[in-house]
């Protein structure tokens, strides 16, 4: 049987340039406005036209944590998508396609799957409206209320004028009527939504929103997937909110500009991915040495090097930890959810200013670019903590005064009587450089200790790690950042049999989750005490070497027993986590098990990257 009546999945597959993202977003928003919980993940390639793109959309009457791993309804915008995914469509589902482009036959699909072919040209008279037409048929077969999506069509084409809106609405309606006449209602149905209009976003917009809420006034960046959509989201609100967005010549400039703005008292942020962060690293230490607050977003993608530009991975942990030379105070957070993308960005600005140091926010493509509904975030009482600011001096001010906490009262340039120089060379309390002629080992030691002392206090100001789920579970899933929700879904399925297809009965035990959101300073005492309570442990990490496992062992001396890893660029699927967790629980292996899972993207056996990916379309790359 198909998935339960509380949720269903729709995939929209085609080539880049087919308008998948916009069609998908219309459908997604129509659902989020109609009282459903939604999760969408767009799997795409580093190509602007051609290639293969598939948006995985899951909607439910309950919270949906991931894109899921089943396929109920497929919109195939090209024959390639039909070949890749047709057989995966669940019995009772349907495949939608444009009969002007290709023909589908029953052998393309699984048992009891409807083929809904639309003669787009004959129906709506314009191939440009193919996606609108297919959405019309989809909504009809799903039996979902079309009001919300009709409204979205109006919003989407508003700028193009009334004629385009009318044409698209007509295309939508005619296709829905056609589907009503020529096809059966789908038997995989989702129950009625709860009527709430839920907000929907990805990690990047949520971090941008958090930054605005925290009073960020300066964002400098160099474009790089998957951080670019943070730049795009922020610049959309720049004029309205008085945020200065500066596209720079490179990432070195981006971070140094943010540091310049931070130095004069502006809450400043920059964002990039692993390659850009590699260029920024020297300036991370610069911010810490000059005690300048700055926030840096690192949205990870598949490495090494330029690696997989449009794919997800959690492979940069040690680059984040190892960035810049020498020992210096800083914090590294790894938000796990959209809510935390917002909250921890605000926290990052407060920590950066209170402790006068850089704060790094690590996400990845999967968290940054997903679309997910979320419950309301706190926008009425945003905590803003700047630390002590000196507004007038008498000339005796010492910018880098040695204090108990290591934090020195801060004076901003422009303040009378507090003139100082902030130097990246070692300096004394007064900011006077001791590296040239006055090198003084005693002062050096005091200044190093002063800066590093911040970490002792900073660590106490961070949200503690926690075990999610039953505290005495038989197996603990361990990870960091974006894999949180797939672990939660696996946990709920195994503990409660929440998803009937996956079942909880034969699990062999219960599961809980230890997923870190604070990477540095490492909360060693808390993590150790949580891990000591755990029975079996299994890490779930999207990288090759098990990076968080290494960090945990380094900081606590404790080893995670078993491991599930993925480095194919696609996110974990719930089933992959459940199957391995179940195997560990049932077999209780004596030796440490390191398992690797790979997503099946339905790539045809005769696939060749040498062939032109699009039908004569000009191909350009996205980096």
């Amino acid at each position, binding site marked *: 049987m198909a998935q339960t009546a509380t949720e269903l999945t729709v995939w929209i597959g085609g080539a880049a340039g087919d308008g998948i993202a916009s069609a998908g977003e219309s459908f997604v928003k129509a659902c989020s*406005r109609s009282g459903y919980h939604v999760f969408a993940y767009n799997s795409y390639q580093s190509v602007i036209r051609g290639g293969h793109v598939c948006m995985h959309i899951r909607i439910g009457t309950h919270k949906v944590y991931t894109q899921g791993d089943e396929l109920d309804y497929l919109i195939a915008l090209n024959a390639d998508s039909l070949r890749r995914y047709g057989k995966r469509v669940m019995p009772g589902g349907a495949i939608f396609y444009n009969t002007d482009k290709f023909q589908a036959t029953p052998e393309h699909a699984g048992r009891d799957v409807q083929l809904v072919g639309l003669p787009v040209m004959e129906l709506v008279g314009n191939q440009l409206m193919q996606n609108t037409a297919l959405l019309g048929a989809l909504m009809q077969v799903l039996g979902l209320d079309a009001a919300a999506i009709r409204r979205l069509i109006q919003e989407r084409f508003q700028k193009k004028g009334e004629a385009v809106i009318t044409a698209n609405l007509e295309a939508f309606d005619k296709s829905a009527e056609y589907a009503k006449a020529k096809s059966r209602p789908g038997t995989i149905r989702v129950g009625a939504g709860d009527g709430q*209009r*839920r*907000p*929907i976003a990805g990690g990047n917009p949520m971090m941008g*929103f958090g930054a*605005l*809420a*925290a*009073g960020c*006034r*300066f964002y*400098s960046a160099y474009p790089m997937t998957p951080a670019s959509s943070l730049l795009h989201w922020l610049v959309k*609100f720049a*004029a*309205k*909110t*008085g*945020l*200065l*967005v500066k596209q*720079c*010549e490179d990432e*070195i*400039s981006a971070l*140094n*500009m943010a*540091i*310049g*703005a*931070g*130095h*004069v*008292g*502006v809450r400043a942020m920059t964002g990039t991915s692993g390659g850009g962060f590699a260029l920024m690293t020297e*300036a991370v230490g*610069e911010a810490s040495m*000059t005690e300048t607050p700055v926030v840096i977003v690192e949205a990870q993608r598949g490495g090494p090097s330029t690696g997989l530009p449009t794919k997800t991975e959690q492979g940069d942990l040690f680059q984040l930890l190892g960035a810049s030379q020498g020992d210096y105070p800083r914090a590294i957070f790894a938000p796990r959810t959209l809510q935390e993308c917002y909250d921890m960005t605000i926290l990052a600005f407060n920590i950066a200013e209170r402790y006068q140091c850089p704060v790094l926010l690590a996400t990845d493509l999967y968290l940054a670019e997903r679309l997910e509904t979320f419950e309301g975030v706190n*926008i*009425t009482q*945003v905590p*803003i903590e*700047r630390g002590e600011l000196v507004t007038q001096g008498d000339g005796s001010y010492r910018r880098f005064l040695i204090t108990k906490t290591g934090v020195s009262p801060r004076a*901003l*340039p*422009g*303040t*009378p*009587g*507090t003139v*100082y*120089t*902030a*130097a*990246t*060379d070692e300096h004394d309390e007064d*900011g*006077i*450089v001791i590296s040239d*002629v006055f090198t003084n080992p005693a002062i050096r030691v005091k200044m190093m200790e002063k800066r590093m002392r911040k970490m002792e206090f900073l660590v106490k100001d961070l949200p503690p790690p926690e075990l999610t789920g039953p505290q005495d579970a038989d197996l603990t899933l361990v990870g960091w950042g974006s894999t949180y929700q797939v672990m939660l879904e696996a946990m709920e399925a195994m503990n409660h049999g929440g998803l009937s297809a996956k079942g909880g009965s034969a699990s062999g035990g219960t599961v809980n989750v230890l997923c870190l959101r604070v990477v540095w300073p490492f909360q060693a005492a808390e993590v150790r005490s949580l891990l000591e309570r755990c029975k079996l442990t299994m890490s779930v990490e999207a990288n090759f070497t098990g990076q968080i496992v290494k960090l945990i062992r380094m900081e606590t001396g404790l080893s995670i027993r078993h491991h599930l890893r993925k480095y194919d660029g696609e996110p974990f699927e719930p089933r992959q986590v459940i199957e391995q967790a179940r195997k560990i629980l049932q077999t209780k292996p004596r030796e440490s098990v390191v398992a690797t899972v790979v997503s099946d993207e339905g790539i045809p056996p005769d696939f060749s990257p040498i062939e032109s990916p699009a039908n004569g379309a000009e191909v350009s790359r996205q980096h």
Partner: protein
Amino acid sequence: MAHVKDYIGKVKPDWCPGCGDFAVLNALQRALAELDIAPHTVQVVSGIGCSSNLPGFIHAYGFHGLHGRSLPVASGARLGNTDLTVIATGGDGDGYGIGVGHFVHTCRRNINMTYIVMDNQVYGLTTGQASPTTEKDIRTKSTPEGTIEIALNPVGLALVCGATYVARGFSGDHLHLAQLMKGAIEHKGFAVVDVFSPCVTYNKHNTYPWFRERVYKLEDEKHDTSDFRLAVEKSFEWGARIPLGLFYKVERPTYEDEEPALRSGIPLARQPLERPDLAAIMEDFI
């Protein structure tokens, strides 16, 4: 009225005796005093190198950052607080070598700030290697057989990249240099002052006497500072005669003028952090 001594920092410069940078520091202090700009409203930003130690020697806010990165930090500081007079300083290695990418783009941007480059045509702090402005065939510690590359033309580069005030001074004439700096600071836009600032320790070729025999002032020859092509032509004049003075000056809207976030006129650093408009932004997610 401010006085030169108001800009004297706590630390005595530790440059080699006879270093051209003393005159640059002195000229900058004089220019600021003559313009009567309060020290606490001045932000000096530098990178790394002998000349980049300057912020420590002047009484003003300073940021002594990474090698080659003075211009991005200065740009961020200036955009962050437009009430500040921002001056970036450094050497030829810092600005024309490791930091030349930033130089090119900062010229394009026309942010209202001044960039003073103490050009000694050698890497001094790292003990005498060839720099981007070292002349061809000069023997240095890293080029014992003579440099193979030709020297970069900083004035020409500034011009073609769009700097709106481009001048060259000489440490051997600090009063003239101070006037060029005054003009640069007063200029509304990105002003570049390249300064021949001889390294008495490592550059035995481009010495004070070497320059004195060759330099002349553009203003003495009634140079038209609004003629871009002439300025570019003059920037290539090298050898028997080397021009000093203001090559080119033009008014163009600054980055600050055209940046929407700065339209209110209130510096970003002085704007409140609390936001009343979050609910409206939230609507975008629905």
